[in-house]
């Protein structure tokens, strides 16, 4: 495909937690509101990505200072706008039995709503817990990386709405360059805990890199991200091998049982 791969670089160090991305996503994709709910988890009442929620801002009130920061008590905010990672090796895509999940010309992972039959296999195969089945008709929904907007040459709604450019949309190669520069800049300023999550295959061999990657300021666990996610298909060969052995065993058992001595002796 001649269209270059596109994606998101989410720089959590500048996120202010305004949730504009969540709202913009809901508005553009016409997703229903999740209702009034007070979770008690800091300012995060969205809780997680869902079939109705394709951007989710995580709020962490951390009892530790960020390097180079001066606060009266040890404290820092960690904020992160989470989204479908559009993995290079996507668990959902490789698991989908209907072919509903495809890779678009922008190298993003897209669920075709008219093909999905709601088998729910992608839900258990996403190592990030992103995609889920709709409550009403059971089809799977997730971030499309604004496939419709991209088709019209526009950037996705969340990136457009983000006032601090914490979410940057662009060509994947440009984003990587930008992320590296930003990381260097932060390290230069003494924020040594900054690091890039899932940018390339080297960072995350299990998924061979994400098309929506992040600059984080703490361990992935703090943001509810898996430290070493891996596409389930990697290593499933062993399961098939064991299954073949088991099948041979069952066939042998059947033959032996059928030929049992008492059985055929006249």
């Amino acid at each position, binding site marked *: 495909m001649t269209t270059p791969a596109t994606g998101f670089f989410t720089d959590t160090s500048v996120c202010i937690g305004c949730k504009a991305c969540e709202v913009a996503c809901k508005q553009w994709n016409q997703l229903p509101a999740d209702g009034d709910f007070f979770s008690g988890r800091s300012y995060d009442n969205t809780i997680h990505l869902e079939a109705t929620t394709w951007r989710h801002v995580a709020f962490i009130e951390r009892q530790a200072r960020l390097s180079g920061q001066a606060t009266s008590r040890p404290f820092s905010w960690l904020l992160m706008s989470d989204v479908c990672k559009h993995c290079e090796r996507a668990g959902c895509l490789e698991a989908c039995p209907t072919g509903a999940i495809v890779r678009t010309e922008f190298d993003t992972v897209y669920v075709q709503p008219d093909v999905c039959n709601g088998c729910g296999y992608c839900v258990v195969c996403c190592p990030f817990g992103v995609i889920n089945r709709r409550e009403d008709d059971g089809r799977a929904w997730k971030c499309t990386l604004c496939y419709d907007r991209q088709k019209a040459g526009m950037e996705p709604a969340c990136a457009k709405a983000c006032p601090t450019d914490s979410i940057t949309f662009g060509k994947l190669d440009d984003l990587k360059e930008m992320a590296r520069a930003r990381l260097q800049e932060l390290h230069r300023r003494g924020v040594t805990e900054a690091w890039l999550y899932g940018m390339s295959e080297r960072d995350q061999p299990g998924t061979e890199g994400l098309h929506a990657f992040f600059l984080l300021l703490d361990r992935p666990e703090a943001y509810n991200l898996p430290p070493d996610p891996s596409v389930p298909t990697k290593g499933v060969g062993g399961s098939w091998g064991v299954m073949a052995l088991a099948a041979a065993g069952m066939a042998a*058992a059947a033959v032996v049982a059928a030929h049992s001595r008492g059985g055929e002796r006249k």
Partner: protein
Amino acid sequence: MSPTLALQTGEGAAQRVKHAEPDAGGIVPLWREVPSQPRPAQDYYRLALLKEPVWIWSVPAYFYVGGVAGGGAVLAAALHGKTRLRRLAAWCRLLAFLGTTVGPALLTYDLGKMSRFLNMLRVLRPSSPMSLGSWSLAGTGMLATLSLLQGDRSGAVTRYGTALGGLMVAGYTGVLLGNTANPLWRERRLLLPLLFTSSAAASTAGVLQLMPLDKREEKVVQRFGMVGKAGEAACMVAMQRSEGTVPEVAAAARGGKGGVLWTAAKAALVTGILVELLPVRSPVKRKVSGALTTIGANCLRFALLESGKSAAREPQATFNLQRTRMKG
């Protein structure tokens, strides 16, 4: 949104919303500590990292029915041409047919709409055990129907085709569960196919034991079943042992509904084996053993689904497994 201001017309707009509140069946547990206090464990408010499997009861029920069909298909092929075991072979063909007919119906019930099962046969995706499984299920269903209609006269192609398909139907569900991001299932990916296949043999024998059998038939069924049950027991022991490495995974497997079902499956299996070993021969004994095997096999499949749900809810299960893997 007020309809006087705007209308939502997109395809995603009409969705019913899943609520996060615990009393609405949501995933957010009640909060008992002050959120801004330092948390010793590194996690995000202990909220789930992964999504729970969304499958309803009909999916584990299908795992069982598919297993019975698979075992039946294999045994039918092995019994072919044995005149004294003709009736048993016919039973087996019937099981293969019924299982591969009821199976897709159960799966379709989970999908919600009849026509949706057909989407499974839209593409063949070798990377997806569910795709390969659906094709084998559909193919085996057709062959099993043919075998049933032709009975003793079925040709070698139909016979062995059904048997091969049956082997696939019996075992692929284990690969399917192993090929997920769920920490509990994923860690058992090498044991699950073995467990499902051996349990399929046991399940088929269990159902056959409930039917009227003569002495010869009984022997065949008993042998086939014993191999299955021994395999099943060995796999269950191996699974319990392998959980020891990550306490959160063990807790997900042992606790809650899944744990109770697992214990029930174990108890039914062990009692079934003990009954089978009693040195008496009676139809009552046979039927009790068959019933115990059937109960055990069903409990086992529901246990796997339920503890998979608990494991998905526990973020530390995933974190710890991955951290251990990274170190190792």
